[in-house]
């Protein structure tokens, strides 16, 4: 069989096995656990880093002096410090990031919110120069590598 024919066959097989792999939970790591997309975003944001428009990791914009003073007077969550710009006051917005699977599509969103909806807080953060709710190029590469490895393994076993 020629290389082009083998590739065409592999392309067909890889398309066919994707829904089965997803149903069997092979990609559940994307929505559950330490390596999930929500966990990656939460961890990186709590460390004070966001993602630029070009996909680079960058420090989140510093807090204004006035806001830092306000934060010194209130009880902060354990993941916050008065001067630390990490989108954490109570921690509820980042805590509420969740992911779920629909077929082979993965959806990431915010749930609930007490004082104001968490998705609104996220929009506010982005509009005020602290974009965080996406993946950097490096993070995307790491995730794609892991997914690729799972698909490769399945293809080799066919």
């Amino acid at each position, binding site marked *: 069989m020629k290389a082009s024919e083998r590739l065409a066959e592999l392309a067909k097989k890889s398309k066919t096995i994707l829904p089965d792999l997803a149903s069997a939970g092979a*990609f559940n790591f994307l929505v559950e656990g330490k390596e999930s997309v929500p966990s990656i975003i939460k961890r990186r944001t709590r460390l004070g880093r966001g993602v630029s428009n070009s996909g680079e990791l960058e420090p989140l914009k510093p807090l204004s002096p006035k806001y830092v003073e306000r934060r010194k007077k209130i009880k902060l969550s354990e993941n916050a410090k008065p001067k630390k710009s990490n989108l954490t006051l109570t921690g509820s917005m980042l805590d509420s990031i969740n992911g779920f699977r629909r077929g082979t599509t993965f959806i990431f969103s915010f749930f609930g919110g007490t004082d104001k909806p968490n998705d609104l807080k996220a929009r506010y953060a982005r509009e005020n120069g602290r974009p965080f709710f996406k993946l950097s190029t490096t993070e995307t590469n790491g*995730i794609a590598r892991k997914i690729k490895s799972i698909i490769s393994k399945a293809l080799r076993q066919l």
Partner: protein
Amino acid sequence: MAWIKTEIKLPKLFDEGDSRAIGEELINFIVERTKSGKGVDGKKFPKYSEAYKDSFEFKVAGKSSTVDLTLSGEMLDSLTVIEAAQGRVVIGFEKDDPNNDKAEGNILGSYGRDPDPSKARNFMDLSEREVTRVINSLNIQLDDGSNIIRNKPSEISQSALQRALQIVEDFNFQEDE
């Protein structure tokens, strides 16, 4: 800045594309091995210092005592195939990548100070046995003339990458509009 990279010799039957695909598998092996807290041949890394475990960064990253060299995860995500040719592959970090410094700190145990072998965590090292194990896991079948007739690494890699990128491109981040 040091340039952290490792060259791995492979059987000559692997052409450039296959060597690249195997390099990617080796990176995956290194990442998974490191995240499980182990270095070459499954040896455990030296423990984290108490000062680091007490740090704000350690806590907000939700780290456990498993030494996985992962704070944000950026260093391990940055590993890449630098060069591939028939029978050899070089994996590591791009030359100008700032993660070279982080990697060097881990490998030498220096962390911005003098090298300290008791804190060295050489996550890039691969034994011959580990490389063989990764190659064997590829389930390659050869004909009598040592040509790959089934599971050619470059072809599997190409097809799998196409699907993996499709999944990632379809990620749907829902934010208030």
